[in-house]
């Protein structure tokens, strides 16, 4: 295929639209995380708002070294949840790797009945 350096402008327009549709909701959530609840729900602020870190302080309230002053008490346990996720992913990846490597070696090296079925 010959390299084309210049594309049709419509191609770039389509590309921008696709990137916007793929990344748009994620950016929306990211921007929402810096807004106060009233800014999100009022539905009129868009990109003009006063950014705040309150939501992050509420979410990370038990791993913060200081006490956020907009919060009376902290009922989340995100430190514990994160450690749980970490344990699950590390242990399951390690076990899958070990078992998978052994299984792959056996499938390649030895001939046995049902070898074709299992290697699909």
């Amino acid at each position, binding site marked *: *295929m010959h*390299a*084309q350096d210049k*594309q049709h402008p419509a*191609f770039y327009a*389509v*590309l921008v639209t*696709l*990137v916007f*549709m*793929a*990344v748009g*909701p*994620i950016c*929306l*959530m990211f921007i*929402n995380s810096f807004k106060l609840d009233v800014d*999100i*729900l*009022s*539905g009129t602020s868009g990109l003009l708002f006063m950014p705040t870190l309150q939501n992050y302080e509420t979410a990370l309230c038990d791993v913060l070294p200081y006490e956020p002053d907009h919060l009376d008490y902290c009922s989340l346990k995100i430190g514990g949840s994160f450690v749980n996720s970490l344990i699950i992913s590390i242990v399951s990846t390690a076990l899958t790797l070990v*078992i998978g490597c*052994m*299984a792959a070696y*056996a499938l390649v090296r030895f001939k046995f009945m049902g070898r*074709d*079925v299992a290697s*699909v």
Partner: protein
Amino acid sequence: MAPAAVIIVITLLYPLGYMVYGSFRAWDPSQTIGETEWVGLRNYIVLYGDPAFRESMWVTLKFAFWVVTVEMILGVGLALLLDRKLRGMSILRTLFILPMMIAPVVVGLMWRYMYHPTVGTINRWLKEFGFSGVDWLGQNALLSVIIADVWQWTPFIFILALAALQSLPSSAIEAARMDGATNWQTIWHIKLPLMMPVLIVTCLLRLIDAFKVLEVILVLTEGGPGLSTEILALRISRTATEFRELGTAAAMSGYLMLLLMALTAAMFIYTKLVERRAQRLAKVVAEAD
């Protein structure tokens, strides 16, 4: 042999056997499985005539069909569109597969915010352009759920189709170009047939996954208004936890397992056929020399 057998039994056969065993018994949550009584195929037969289960199965089939169709068309179309030398190709690819990397619960919550009838993003934009807002999570609940799943999983098809496209022999495409084929003709007669094995396996993989979707629908509609988006996985979880009919839930899981086994067998048969055809071709080529 022994350690492998032990691992396979513990991780694969025991839970499966437990579920199949439980599906043949009348199982109250207050009993352990040893105390239940044998009822044979009664759970399966009762489910076969249960209108709620049939509705759930029908919704699941509709959902899986539409999701896989739209994702295949969009994913392959995207791959065909982006199969050219662009400068920012790797960045573009990373941006495009970003939706796939997000946890399904977060995707559900994100789309739930966007689908809100008054302050949700989509309705606000529609109203700005003069259209009236659409009742996404009420009347068009299945459509909304399909859109959310398509958004999340089209990148999967896109990545696999792009990899297949970039591994095609360029000689075939150059020959077509020299013979004067237009772009559409090249795609339809050369690129798609050559990509077909990969596309079919991708389609079957995605189909098997589509029957297991739970978190997005649970967060978005919790089964939808009435039962309109209650897919099988949600119905099984609801039967086991809310209705507390564990035998019936196990029987539903049995039906789902049979369906997925049929799909997996189809995938296996297809790859065997492709392999056999490739071997025959190789033999013919070797004999022709």
